[in-house]
């Protein structure tokens, strides 16, 4: 037993150490900051006041948080709708010989920084951009594609899609094809086979993909900033601007904790279906 526990300490220590130094300690610092006050020069003054949290719950900021929740939810649903057929094709239709190469293509965008990829979308979407030039060449009217909510959603969908496809692929690849035959054999057509067998069987992948897309989307700020033109405020931009522009670290920290709390509450609310993701 002693050997076992020493082995466990040996295996876990680097990870725990990193977590403590780079996550828990900074979190603690931020918690202290969030309870403090901003001085006139943007410094942090020690205090123990709930003011920043009360301010974060003002209607203006709750609206922004709500908008972020909607963006994250729409992004997640869009990723699921776009990603599921892709994952299905990869796992069940694509030739096994090419499957790994195709999967690598899904992950390939990660080789480039997210920032650069967002700029690439600007090149595509702006009024003199690739898409509008093509529309013009085809004799069609041009469209204002950039700096609106649709552009933000496109950027988010594009950026988060691989995080949806990969877990879906894993669960679809494990799906036993004889279960589909059994469902057909018992009288289920394609639609009911999908809703009654495929979806329940791939629920771990669906849940994992949704969590992986939803949580980062909730705090997204690059796509709203670059593709939305900063016209619509999302909570990610709000927090970022508190630190970088308004120099109100205590309020930014409080907003961060409110956001984390929302995520924790959501995970708790969905813990039953989330439990199934452990089967992945």
């Amino acid at each position, binding site marked *: 037993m002693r050997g076992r526990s020493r082995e466990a300490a040996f295996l876990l220590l680097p990870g725990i150490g990193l977590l403590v130094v780079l996550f828990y300690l900074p979190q603690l610092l931020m918690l202290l900051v969030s309870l403090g006050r901003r001085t006139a020069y943007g410094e942090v003054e020690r205090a123990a006041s709930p003011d920043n949290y009360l301010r974060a719950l003002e209607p203006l900021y709750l609206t922004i948080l709500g908008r972020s929740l909607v963006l994250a939810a729409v992004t997640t649903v869009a990723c699921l709708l776009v990603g599921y057929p892709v994952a299905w094709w990869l796992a069940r239709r694509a030739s096994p010989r090419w499957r790994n190469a195709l999967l690598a293509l899904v992950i390939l965008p990660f080789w480039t920084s997210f920032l650069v990829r967002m700029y690439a979308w600007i090149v595509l979407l702006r009024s003199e951009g690739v898409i509008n030039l093509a529309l013009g060449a085809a004799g069609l009217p041009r469209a204002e594609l950039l700096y609106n909510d649709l552009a933000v959603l496109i950027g988010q969908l594009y950026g988060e899609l691989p995080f949806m496809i990969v877990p879906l692929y894993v669960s679809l690849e494990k799906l*036993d094809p*004889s*279960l589909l*035959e*059994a*469902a*057909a*054999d*018992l*009288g*289920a*057509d394609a639609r*009911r086979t999908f809703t*009654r*067998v495929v979806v*329940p*069987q791939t*629920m771990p992948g669906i849940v994992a993909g949704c969590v992986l897309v939803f949580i980062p989307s909730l705090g997204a700020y690059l796509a709203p900033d670059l593709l939305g033109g900063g016209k619509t405020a999302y909570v990610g931009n709000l927090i970022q601007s508190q630190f970088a522009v308004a120099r109100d670290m205590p309020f930014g920290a409080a907003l961060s904790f409110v956001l984390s709390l929302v995520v924790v509450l959501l995970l708790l609310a969905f813990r039953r279906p989330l439990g199934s993701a452990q089967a992945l």
Partner: protein
Amino acid sequence: MKGELRIRGVSRSYGDVQAVRDVSLDAAPGQFVTLLGPSGCGKTTLLRLVAGFERPDSGSIWISGRDVTALSAHKRPANTVFQHYALFPHRSVFGNVAFGLEIEGLPKAEVRDRVERALELVRLAGLGDRRVTEISGGQKQRVALARALVLEPEVLLLDEPMAALDPKLRKEMQVELKNLQERLRITFLFVTHDQDEALVMADRIAVMSQGRIEQTGGPEELYERPRTRFVADFLGVANLFRSEVLGVGGGVARVRTEAGLSFDASNDGGYRAGATVWVGLRSEKISLTDRAANAFAGTIDDEIFLGDWTDWRVRVGGEVLSVGEGNLLARGRKRGDAVTLSFPPEAVLRLDDPEAAA
């Protein structure tokens, strides 16, 4: 007629591989028909064609007098018990059996009634709440059976359902399944590679090889009168000789094996003087006494103890024959003993060899 299965000239290829070649087979309503053959002989493909998971390249399939060749699997009045059961892991035992009834859209109370009855039928009453991941292999098989039977199929298709069970349980399930089939009078199409299983359970056996049906018949008929070398070999005829017909007359044919053993075979009319034929001889039809027309002196080369009987390998000239002897008689013999063996000419089977002819 309800429950009648007719397969007419069905073929199916995968690329260059002809999995099923021009197969025709009938099953009368309530008959237990077994497809028997080694792995890769096309028996599972044939079953999947009947289930509708595969489409034939040519030919037609009829169930209860209706052409179902173009019908999708979910519309066919046939249900399948899969080799590895294919139970839905996210559903309970009850949920698995209820699946097809729920798809039919039956009211909840009726679903519950019929599922309960189906579970009773396979002796799983009271286990409905169990998860299918928590039950034993034998129980899983019963769930798979109940799930198919609850829909009252006109034909039940079973794809090696016993393959994953241990031998003792398999023997029990064979008898139980046979009794169940006799009680329900549902047409069974049963796939297996195990000749004992086929002999125990089937009313009719179709032996398949290389995508074709080699011979169809009742268990006894197949056992006693295999017509081809393949069927004889697969059904355990241990002594097979490529022989030359020396002469025909007086109701017998005189044949000589390649190693020079000559004996009489009762002539079924298929022997031609000078022709080459395959003949077979079951080891239990040879006795170690000198009493019939074909008697030879030999020595015991080897013995294989099989519990209630012993398989003696007896060398006679250039041939080694497998001779079965019940162990009540076999006591006292040993390797190297000189023995006399004999067999009646009626025991010699004349076998076709379509592969050699082709």
